[in-house]
């Protein structure tokens, strides 16, 4: 058991290597680069508050972990039975316990936890603080998210969109979270913790973005078939850009240019095939739905926006090209990708993605339309897909 200087040096070097590797690993784990959903890189004040609470806890837990594991290895090696030891000679002292010691290691962690509990309570109370919040209603549905903005507080939403919400940087936002079917969970890790969307209830998440950005989110309560693909985005814009976004979103898109024949044909097709579920402001469905979501058509469908019928059964597409993502955030609407938040997206529309979806939606996102869950495959012809795509591109 005698150590010479050399073995100390070797142990020291090994320890140093382990520490450096461990440090690099921790740095790497915490890095947000290439990890759009990481919880370790807060970009909002609530997520920062959570981070401030938990990082010291991680540190303490890490220290306890290292102490216990080192202690375990030490005890196991120090008191291992050696080959020259014989039963009956120099047997261990039969210690049955030590009440003081045991009380000590019962009370000490309890005290430590009691101290941490104070910070815990403090942070819990802090999570619901909000001053003059912007209110956005979020409705979870299988398997996409709808957002409603009631700008004039008259009870009727003025903006209805899906998948991608816009918020101004530096202002508290209260997301009022509801569900249309099963339990979902709304979660933008960079901005705040998650909150379940439970049918029949309204919950809230309050958050504030500290910087401009496109923040990724993910449904985190198992909600059936395509739960894993139920994503959403929150884009935080400067207050000026946010105003631009609001203006664009509250202005109905122009009717397709008559010269754009494809788009005009696409509109006709849309009204016949799609408008029963997908609302577009100013478009009235003419036919009965080929698909048994609503048995009785709403007479005012598309003329006014009313809460009872606002979303229909599928995302409102009035301003689809104002979004940078569609299909629950799975696919980009623009060639340039959707990682940079823009008030009004610029760039080349990614028509391949749109066509891919129209060709067979279930190929992109598994759904069960026979059980009223998600979009059926209409087996559109390529010509029809071209027409619909041309029409959708005008919806900005």
């Amino acid at each position: 058991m005698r150590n010479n200087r050399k073995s100390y040096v070797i142990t020291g070097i090994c320890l140093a290597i382990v520490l450096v590797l461990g440090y690099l690993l921790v740095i790497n784990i915490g890095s947000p680069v290439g990890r759009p959903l990481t919880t370790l890189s807060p970009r909002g004040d609530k997520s920062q508050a959570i981070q401030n609470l938990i990082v010291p806890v991680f540190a303490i837990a890490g220290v306890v972990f290292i102490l216990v594991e080192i202690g375990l290895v030490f005890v196991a090696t120090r008191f291992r039975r050696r080959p020259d030891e014989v039963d009956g000679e120099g047997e261990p002292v039969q210690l049955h316990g030590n009440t003081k010691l045991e009380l000590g290691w019962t009370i000490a962690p309890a005290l430590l936890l009691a101290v941490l509990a104070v910070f815990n309570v403090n942070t819990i109370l802090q999570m619901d603080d909000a001053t003059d919040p912007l209110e956005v209603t979020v409705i979870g549905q299988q398997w996409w998210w709808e957002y409603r903005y009631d700008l004039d507080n008259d009870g009727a939403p003025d903006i209805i969109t899906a998948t991608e919400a816009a918020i101004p940087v530096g202002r508290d936002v209260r997301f009022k979270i509801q569900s249309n079917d099963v339990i979902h969970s709304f979660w933008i890790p960079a901005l705040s913790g998650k909150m379940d969307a439970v049918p029949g209830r309204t919950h809230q998440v309050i958050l504030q973005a500290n910087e401009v950005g496109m923040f990724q989110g993910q449904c985190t309560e198992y909600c059936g078939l395509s739960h894993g693909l139920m994503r959403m985005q929150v884009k935080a814009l400067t207050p000026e850009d946010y105003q631009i976004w609001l203006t664009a979103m509250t202005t109905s898109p122009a009717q397709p240019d008559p010269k754009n024949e494809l788009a005009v044909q696409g509109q006709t097709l849309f009204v016949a095939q799609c408008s029963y579920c997908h609302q577009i402001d100013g478009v009235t469905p003419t036919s009965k739905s080929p698909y048994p979501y609503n048995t009785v058509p709403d007479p005012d469908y598309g003329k006014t926006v009313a809460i009872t019928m606002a979303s229909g059964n599928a995302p409102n597409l009035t301003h689809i090209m104002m979004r940078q993502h569609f299909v629950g955030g799975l696919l980009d609407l623009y060639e340039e990708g959707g990682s940079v938040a823009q008030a009004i997206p610029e760039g080349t529309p990614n028509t391949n993605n749109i066509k891919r979806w129209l060709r067979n939606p279930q190929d992109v996102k598994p759904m069960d339309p026979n059980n009223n869950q998600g979009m059926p495959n209409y087996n559109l012809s390529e010509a029809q897909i071209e027409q619909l795509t041309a029409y959708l591109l005008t919806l900005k």
Partner: protein
Amino acid sequence: MAIIEDQRPLELTTGHDPVAPEAPSPLGVFARPKANTGWRSWVNTVDHKKIGIMYGVASFFFLLVGGVEALLIRLQLSVPGNQLLSADLYNQVFTMHGVTMVFMVIMPMASAFANYLIPLQIGARDVSFPRMNALSLWIWLAGAIFFNSSWLLGGGANGGWFNYAPNAGVTFSPGTGIDFYAIGLLIMGIGSTVSAVNLTVTVLNMRAPGMTLMKMPVFTWMNFVVQVLLVFALPVITVALLLLTLDRMFGAAFFDASKGGDPFLWEHLFWIFGHPEVYIMVLPAFGMVSEIIPVFSRKPIFGYPFMVGSGIAIGFMGWGVWAHHMFASGMGQLSVLAFSLSTLFIAVPTGVKILNWMATMYGGRIKFTVPMLFSIGLVGMFTIGGLSGVTHAFAPADTQQTDTYYIVAHFHYVLFGGALLGMMGGLYFWWPKMFGHFLGERTGKWHFWLMLVGFNLTFGPMHILGLQGMMRRTFTYTSVQGFSMWNLVSTIGAFIIALSLLVFIGNVFFSYRKHRKNPVNPGADPWDARSLEWMIPSPTPEYNFAEIPVVEEFDEFWHRKYGHDENGRLVRIAKTEDVVESSDPVTVHLPSPSYWPLVLALGMPLVGYGLIFNLWWAVPGVILIVAGIYGWVMEPATDPDGGHGHDDHHDEPDEPDATELAAPETAEAELVSASAGSTGAITGEGDSQ
């Protein structure tokens, strides 16, 4: 050996005419079973040891089933965008994996040990109600097979093991998978309840003379806590499952918000059961480790009262923390505060256990046998699970962590690193007692190290994945999400775990073959161990104790072998051979085997199929259940004509009345009671000195 029936408990306990319980005249195949060997002896047995072994074998089979499901999960997630499983199939596989591992592996494997060992550790000849013990096994097994048969009958459950409403309602899950979940768990719950009542009574009533509660081995204590938890927890899940069944099959709306129900009701009911369930799964393994570490450290367990007390504390506090599964459910700030605080402090008794195990090893003389390696592995790995548990007791942090892989990592460190590693250690430790030969030590070490490495490779990276935002229960992910590397590592780890299980199977097979070629009996006490089960020959004889020992101290058997000198050092005071039991039983009376538990249990899945598919199928099920109950009631607990197949059986005059009157038996009392046993002990040479 001479096994002699000297009592007919029914005669003296029911107070009826002694002639009344005479067996109904044998009706062909329904004649009282007598087989003592062969497969029949297993089917009709009421012996707690055979029942324990059957629990073990069946739970190991389901471990392989659940393991294959786990491998499918890991294969699907090994690379982004994998198409191996469809979303629907993946959802079934992870649900079935979870339910199988919880209800068909961890719980019954713990039951295997509890059934086998509790009577031995408390110095009893069997459990209080042997036929009920058989019933609980058969009902559980029938439920488990019923549940898994859903794979062949339209697909497995796909609502997650937590099965939240309203996704689990017929509107959103119209398939039959969730019906199998609801009814399968109801059936298994009946089995577990029967077993829990039985073992609770056994611990309270059947202890050997002198064994006070605070002289019971820690394993028995932890299992006692578990059984009491089960008695109270199972009714909650039973109610929830019944409501779910009513919702799904009869159009009730307990959990359907659109009809005025409340999905929160399910969440609360499920977790009021679900959280104690965590301790139900992990405490038995804690008990095993508390037996193994002292034996191989050659020191008594450090702080026995603290070990027992912390186990009880965990059991109690476990009822006040359930809503920490719901921090993100929107239940309100006050609830979050309360449950966040209570959850923080449940870490304390668990921490006490870890430190006491280490203190037990401290100053000992540690032998690194395979069971000891698994036990040290549990201490090290459970520490990780416990600490990550503390990090999500902080509710705001939990809203970032919950439903991510961080949670998956956490509970696998608790249930695999805790429960399963402990039970693997238990298998190696008690194998010679159960089967009369050792498992291979060298192979066992391979098993341990492969499992430890595979386990950490599989579940360690999940901490990182979770903190980086990978959600649970997702059938796929895309490369831009940055989850690819650690998922691949995790999948590799899963296959190393699979390899380690193959090594274990090989170990079982080859050690048995070696034993068959060259039988070497390990003797009663192969490990120089401490508790009563090591006093009796290996494998355990059918009657357990020829003479029921009279207990004076905690670790009674150890104290018969060792004392200590003035410095507190260990001194041998008696040879092991002189202390262990060698005499043939003088007066042993064993419960008689019976078909009826099996008949009764077989009816249950038939009723289940009837409820799901066509009520006519339930008719034979109900007939079987009624017939089982009828046959059981009409059958005397002890076969008046039975000799258990022992040739040397002969009737003897009844024991003196005093013995009989002392028997605290109820009508169900089916076997020799502690009093009958103690008669043997008193008449025999009761002590070793």
